């Protein structure tokens, strides 16, 4: 490796951190906006986290930015951190939004609005990319696992909210009661897209079918977004006037 001179090494380190910071915020904010506008309600409310649509749609939509980020980090830096990097950005923006918006401003309790974690799937995506060094295999194995592990990975958080209670003479889960109790004027009960469709006819727990189906679709989604990431990062390049200071060329 052509080592830069010591004087320029500090400059390079600053440039590295600046580049990383710009990438982090760009990905984090874009990722959060996309998530909020597409599957935000499933992420936002505890009484939307059902067995059918949440494990199907949420990881399926949210694999987009990890795939793009992986493409950029892998293509230009051969770093297998893109998925974790993107998901960490999402986590930061999610929890910032939770504490400043939902709790600090609208005073919703955290039991109503806690966010799910995508980190397990992201770690698997990154790990598999390094082990295979092959985006196609990563799409098949990692893309599928990203969605398949989403529901079980979040089950330890969700399960206490799925305990059964009797409330107002009806059977309900704790999540139902939390959603009912804490007033949301613009989120009436009928807007919830939960447990709708014929998927419930497949066995007792449709979460398994949803997760597997989501895993299958995520293979395709990963491929699409990884390709888009490659194209997006393939920007027109200008002649580098400082290349000789960077130790790149004479």
């Amino acid at each position: 490796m052509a080592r830069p001179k010591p004087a320029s090494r500090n400059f390079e380190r600053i440039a590295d951190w600046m580049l990383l910071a710009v990438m982090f915020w760009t990905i984090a904010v874009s990722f959060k906006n996309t998530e909020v506008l597409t599957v935000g309600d499933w992420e936002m409310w505890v009484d939307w986290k059902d067995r059918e649509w949440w494990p199907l749609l949420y990881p399926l939509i949210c694999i987009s930015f990890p795939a793009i980020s992986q493409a950029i980090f892998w293509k230009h830096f051969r770093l297998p951190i893109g998925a974790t990097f993107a998901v960490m950005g999402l986590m930061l923006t999610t929890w910032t939004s939770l504490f400043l918006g939902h709790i600090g401003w609208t005073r919703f309790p955290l039991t109503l609005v806690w966010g799910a974690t995508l980190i397990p799937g992201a770690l698997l995506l990154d790990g598999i990319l390094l082990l295979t060094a092959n985006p196609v295999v990563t799409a098949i194995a990692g893309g599928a696992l990203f969605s398949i592990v989403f529901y079980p990975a979040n089950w330890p958080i969700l399960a206490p909210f799925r305990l059964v209670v009797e409330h107002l003479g009806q059977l309900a889960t704790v999540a139902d009661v939390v959603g009912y109790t804490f007033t949301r004027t613009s989120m009436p009960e009928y807007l919830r897209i939960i447990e709708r469709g014929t998927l419930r006819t497949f066995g007792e727990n449709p979460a398994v079918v949803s997760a597997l189906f989501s895993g299958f679709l995520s293979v395709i989604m990963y491929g699409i977004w990884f390709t888009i990431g490659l194209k997006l990062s393939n920007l027109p390049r200008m002649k580098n006037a400082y290349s000789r200071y960077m130790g790149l060329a004479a």
Partner: protein
Amino acid sequence: MNPRLLVSSVSILALLLAGATPAIAHGERNQEPFLRMRTAHWYDVTWSADQVKVNDEIEIRGRLHIFSDWPKHLFELKTVYLNLGANGPVFVKSATYLGDTPMMQSTHLEYGKEYEFRIVAKARTPGRHHVHPMLNVGGAGPLLGPGKWIEVTGNAADFVFPLKTLDGITIPNLETWQLGNVFRVHAYWLVLAFAWLGWWFRGGPSLLSRFRVLETGREETLFNNADRIAAAALVVLALFSVAYGMISTNSKYPRTSALQGGRVRVFPLPDSPDQVIVRHQKGVYQVPGRSLQLTLKVTNRTPRPVRLGEFTAANLRFVNRALPAAVAGIPANYPEDLLTRTGLVVTPDDPIAPGETREIKVEAADAAWETERLASLMGNPDSSYGAVLFFFDSQGKRTVSEVSGPAIPVFTTL
């Protein structure tokens, strides 16, 4: 930066912020008049208290009339949800009922029918809050009933909402249930994520140097066996953690259920055999006088003589002060802003005999037409008003009717 520009910018910002006041409304006057006048009419609404402490409950109850002349050109009434209209969860819902049916889920209501509602709300946040009964309607949004200011005193930190599961697990407070667990699970995965990112950034990000190496085609120098072992360990640990978390959680909570999202069925109050039929003949909204002047044809199909006692639209009550039975229907603590000062003028105002059909003139004049932004119905596509009318017999027995029709604006004094 230019100091003058900086001082000017800060001064302008300070001036803008100086005039800012906290927003306390939640848009009830912002809805189009047809949404407030021709959809859901709330009446006999009472609030059990004006002032409560944190954890105390209030009860809001009354009746709901679903208008027959619903603005169907915009949306059909399909799915509705009884809700509490307040500025966020300052009050929480302990119970809501339509008739005897708990309203945890949504339902369907029928045009032209009446329903009794009851909302039990528990105070959560200290302050002065405007609290309404509310109906969320699929396709139309929230329809607010009359609102009343309720003072909540005490400390927000004292709020609790306990619950007990069918397994016998006691939930001390829904607001804080299992939050420690939420943070623990997130923290575990965050530690793993930081460890993975830290592995690659342990000597600094090295983005540019890696980029340089890739440019020169020496990719193999960017990884070593330790990296591959770390990746394999990460994959194994992640899969094991997910499996362990799932299995241990299932053993801890063996009985869980699906979210409950069905529709409940509610039944309206039975139709009254005694009816007063009201037909719109002519409607004029006099803009300078802020007065809605109606000519109505009234047919009394009750066995007793009746008089018109109240005209209510968009939660505004125009009461015929000449009729004691109508005045008696106003609770002492009813919100003053919803009671018009001038009331209702009916001509002729003598009783309408059983079986008689009579043409009467009704004038509902008040500045509230403007302040409540109802005069803008002239700008609606069909420019129609809608109202519920209360007729009273000599015993004080009430009959509820509805009326609607076009209102023609008059821009000069008649």
